[in-house]
C-alpha cells in the first residue's frame, strides 16, 4: 500500500466520503463515532436541513461538538425535540427514517454486520463485543443504511460469525421473506480503502470507488472473500483543506478523527 504524504488522513477521507452520501432534507439515524461526525459534517456543508435522529431521544439537533455517547447531552444541542427511544424507534418503524448509519466489527458479502462476539460459539466467546445496541433496529427499520468500517482480511468475511444486524441476509428477497420492511437494506459501505455499493440483482457487495493511492490489489488483499470489482473503478474524491478544518472543529479533542 502506498502512503501519500498529505494534509488528510484515511479517517478524514472516510468521514467526508460518508457525509457526501447524505442528501439534504432527508432523515438519518446516527450511531456513535464516525457516523456522528459524518452526519454533523453533512449538515454543516451540503445538507443544512439534514434531520439527525438519535436512539436515546434527540431529534433534529445542530450539534456543536462530537458527543461521547448517542445519548449524552451533546446530542441535544439546538435540537427541535428531545423525545424518547420509544418515539424515535417507532417513527423509524413507521417509515420516517431515510438513512441509518452504522459501524461494526465484522461485515460479510451481503452487508450483514456482527457486533456480538468473535470465536467458536456464542456460549463461549473468544471476544465478547457489545451486542446489537440500536444497530439491529437501525438496520431493520430505516429505509436504507450506510456502513463505515475499517476493512481487513479478518473482518471482511464471506459469512459473519453472528448476524447482529441484518444486511441482505443470504441474498435477494431474504429480508422481505424474514418480514423486514420492503425495499430496505444497506446501500453503501465506506472503508479506509474504498467505497462499495450492492449489486442490484445479487445483493452482493461491489467496489464503487477506490481511494487515492490504493490499488485493486490492496482491496483484494484486505478482503476475506472474492469481491466484485468492476472495470474502470473511479477514484474517490478527496477532502479539501477546508473540509479537514471543519472536521477538527467538530471533533476538537480528536475522539473520532484523531489529532
Amino acid at each position: 500500500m502506498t502512503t501519500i504524504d498529505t494534509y488528510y488522513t484515511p479517517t478524514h477521507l472516510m468521514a467526508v466520503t460518508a457525509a457526501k452520501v447524505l442528501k439534504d432534507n432527508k432523515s438519518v439515524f446516527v450511531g456513535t463515532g464516525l457516523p456522528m461526525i459524518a452526519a454533523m459534517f453533512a449538515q454543516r456543508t451540503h445538507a443544512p436541513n439534514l434531520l439527525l435522529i438519535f436512539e436515546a431521544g434527540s431529534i433534529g439537533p445542530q450539534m456543536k461538538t462530537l458527543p461521547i455517547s448517542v445519548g449524552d447531552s451533546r446530542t441535544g444541542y439546538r435540537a427541535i425535540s428531545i423525545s424518547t427511544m420509544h418515539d424515535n424507534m417507532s417513527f423509524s418503524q413507521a417509515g420516517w427514517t431515510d438513512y441509518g448509519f452504522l459501524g461494526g466489527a465484522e461485515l460479510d458479502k451481503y452487508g450483514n454486520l456482527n457486533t456480538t462476539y468473535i470465536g467458536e460459539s456464542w456460549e463461549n466467546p473468544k471476544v465478547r463485543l457489545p451486542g446489537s445496541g440500536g444497530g439491529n433496529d437501525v438496520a431493520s427499520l430505516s429505509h436504507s443504511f450506510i456502513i463505515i468500517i475499517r476493512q481487513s482480511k479478518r473482518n471482511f468475511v464471506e459469512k459473519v460469525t453472528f448476524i447482529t444486524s441484518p444486511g441482505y441476509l443470504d441474498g435477494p428477497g431474504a429480508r422481505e421473506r424474514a418480514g423486514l420492511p420492503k425495499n430496505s437494506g444497506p446501500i453503501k459501505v465506506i472503508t479506509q480503502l474504498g467505497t462499495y455499493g450492492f449489486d442490484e440483482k445479487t445483493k452482493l457487495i461491489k467496489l464503487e470507488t477506490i481511494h487515492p493511492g490504493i490499488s485493486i490489489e490492496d482491496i483484494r488483499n484486505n478482503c476475506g472473500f472474492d469481491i466484485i470489482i468492476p472495470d474502470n473503478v473511479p477514484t474517490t474524491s478527496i477532502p479539501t483543506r477546508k473540509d479537514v478544518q471543519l472536521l477538527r472543529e467538530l471533533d476538537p479533542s480528536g475522539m473520532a478523527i484523531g489529532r
Partner: protein
Amino acid sequence: MKILEEGTGELVGWHDPDENREWMAKRSRAIVDKQMSLSDAVSKYVTDGDVIAMGGFGHIRVSMAAIFEMIRQKKKNLTMLGKTGVHDIDIMIGGGIISKVEVAYCFGHEMRGLSKCGRNAVESGRVKVISEISNAGHQWRFLGGMMGVPFVPTRTMLGSDTLRKSSAKVVEDPWTKKPICLIPSCNPDIVFIHVPRADKFGNCQFDGYVVEDFEIARAARKLVITTEKIIDNEEIRDKPWKTLIPGFFVDAVVEVKYGSHPCNMPGQYYFDEVAISEWLDMSKTDEGLKLWLDKYVYGVSNFEEYLELVGGVEKMKYLYELEHYRAELKAPWLDKKLGGKK
C-alpha cells in the same frame, strides 16, 4: 397464529399479565412521604436474584449512588436487563452483584472502546449472557410490561441471529400474512431511576433525556428513585405536565446530589472522563479492580464521601462548566489512545 421461529434465549422478567395485575393491585396508592436513606431503600427493596433494570442510558442519568450501595451491601445473583448498559453494568459486574445478563448493549463504553472488566467476566464465564436483544426490542419489552399485555409486535430483529438468541418469537401476522416479531413483555423486579427533581411523595420531573424511563417506571414491580433535588409538592402541582413519573409508581425516594457521577446528568454535569479513565484502567485486572472497590465503594460509607474522594465541589463545578461548553474535556483514555499528541 402460526409460530414461524422461536428465539432460544432465556426469558426473564416476563409475568402473566393477570399475575402482574395482582402484584400492582397490592401496591399502595397512598400519598405518603417516601423518603428514606439509600442504604435503607437498597436493603428493603433489592432482593438477591432480582431481575433489575437501571434507568437512564448506561452512562447518562444513571443512579450510580444506588449501584455503589448495592455493591456495599453485597447484593448477589442479580439478572441485569442490559438495555444500553455502559458504566452502570460495568461497575455492577466488577462489584460482583450480577450473575446473568440479557444484552442489548453491554461490555462497551461507546467512544471509549470496549470494557475489559465486563468482557473478562463474560469470557471467563463468571457472568453469563442468557439472551440477546436490540435496544428498541428491550424498550418494547418494557412498553409491553407497562401496557399489561404479554407481548408487543414489532418489525425489528427479523432474520437476524440477535433474534435467534433472544426470547422473542416470530409468527405469521393474521392481517398481512407476513412474519412479525413478538417481543415478550417485561416487568423488572426492581428498577432504579435517577431524576433531576422529585417531591417527597415520589412525583418525578424531567428535563428531557427520558430515554425509556417513562415505560420502565410503569413496568417496574418495585421502583426506587434517586434525585438530584427534593422539591416541594407545590412546585410539582405548579407544572404537572413536567411530571413523567407520578409518585404512586414509586416505592422510595432518596435525595442524592450528584448521584449520577461520573456519568452525564444532562443540564447539570458532563461525564467525568478522569474518573471513568481511572475505572477503565484499574478494572482491567482483578488486583486493580479490588483496589478500586476498596477505595471508592467499601472504603466510604456513602456517596457523599465518595464524591469528596473524586474531587468534591470543585470537580462538580468543573463538570457543570464542561456540560455548558465552557471548559475543556480532560480525557486520559483519549490521550492514551492518541499517544499523547495534542
